[in-house]
């Protein structure tokens, strides 16, 4: 008696032995296996490669709109890797800082004069950064509008070994508020156009900061 048979006897399975008449024949099974292998190959090449890697040898992924997904994922992966190199990795965002900062983000006060205006146009899938160099405790106010399409943004800061993510948005057309720097460094926006047409953003700024830095 094998160990399996002993276990079988002890266990009293909740089922009877399969009736051979109910089971698929070897021929049916062979056919299904071949169908599964062919299907897997089609899905792998026509769906999986485009949707994960943006590689689309058949053009099917493009028709389905999945190639764009793969391209975005690859782009994000590259950016994450670059970011890791730049900032030494590890998520240093402090949720406490985030919470405290949250108190200071509100509607911009209605005042008349803006000191700086930054205007830029992004083609679809293009991105740029606009950062304010601020000292700890500095407060800057901002208001922006997007024209020609809708824009994605990530308002964040890093410097002094710290980083914080203030606000994110997608498909937005305007925004306003203020930034109070919880630590010295660069505070500002990463902008990316995920829309289908060129988008022009006009960003107006005032308050305490020493410099406006733009980078592609």
């Amino acid at each position, binding site marked *: 008696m*094998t160990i*399996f*048979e002993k*276990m*079988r006897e002890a*266990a*009293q*399975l*909740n*089922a009877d*032995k*399969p*009736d*051979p008449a*109910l*089971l*698929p024949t*070897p021929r*049916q*099974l062979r056919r*299904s*296996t071949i169908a*599964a292998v062919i*299907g897997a190959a089609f*899905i792998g090449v026509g*769906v999986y490669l485009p*949707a*994960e890697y943006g590689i689309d040898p058949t053009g099917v992924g493009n028709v*389905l*709109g*999945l190639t764009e*997904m793969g391209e*975005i*994922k690859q782009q*994000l*992966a590259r950016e*994450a890797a670059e970011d890791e190199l730049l900032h030494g990795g590890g998520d240093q965002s402090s949720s406490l800082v985030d919470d405290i900062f949250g108190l200071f983000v509100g509607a911009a006060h209605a005042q008349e004069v803006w000191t700086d205006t930054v205007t830029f146009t992004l083609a679809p899938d293009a991105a740029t950064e606009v950062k304010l160099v601020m000292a700890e405790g500095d407060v800057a106010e901002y208001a922006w509008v997007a024209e020609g399409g*809708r824009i*994605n943004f990530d308002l964040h800061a890093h410097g002094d070994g710290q980083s914080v993510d203030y606000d*994110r948005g*997608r*498909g937005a057309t305007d925004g306003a508020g203020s930034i109070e720097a919880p630590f010295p460094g660069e505070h500002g926006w990463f902008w*990316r156009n*995920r829309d289908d047409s060129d988008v022009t953003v006009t960003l107006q700024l005032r308050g305490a900061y020493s410099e406006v830095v733009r980078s592609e």
Partner: protein
Amino acid sequence: MSSNSTGLRALASRRVTALLLTALAVYASSVAQALAHDVTPGDAGYIQEIWGVHVISFIYLGAKHMVTGYDHILFLLGVVFFLYRMKDVAIYVSIFAIGHSVTMLAGVWWGWGINAYIIDAIIGLSVVYKALDNLGAYQKWFGVQPNTKAATLIFGLFHGTGLASKIIEYDISDEGLLWNLLAFNVGVEVGQILALFVILIVMGYWRRSSAFMSQAVVANVIMVGLGLWLTVIQINGYLAAA
């Protein structure tokens, strides 16, 4: 002569078991990155950059989530393990689909996010429950057979809550949410059918072997173990996060 052929058969059955375990291990390692509670950063990252209706993209993401969701696949395997008629397979899988669709859609729509570790621990227990059911444990311990269809529905509801918790983490844009969500649900069912197709082929070969019934005991004992393992991992994750 006869003892020789028995020995060969025992060897063959051991090889089948080893092959299955290897396949399972390879599968588990290929989806190991999903073990961490977040949905893969790539999918979430993509979703967080888009807005509006993207039907095919969300069908793909739903199917991917199901096919790489080893906990759902294990439960599905347990449910169909002893279903020899296609009609029964269709009935039980439909019950499971109805269960997880209801809580998945309602959960995301009304934001019933339950702690993902807790819901995944329950999903691990659903695997344990079904494998014990297959082993006839409830009849043996309590002298009763709990309704298997009701159990499939109830655990389906829990699996759907787990899906909802993960979709909420995806942070899908409000714009086009309903259509994208429905597409994701369709994708989950597509993924389930694809997985089922493979499971039924493997089970088809296996059931034809004379050693099926004795190996079935081992397989379901292993499933109890895997379900417990998943549960412990999730409880540990919960305690570590708390």
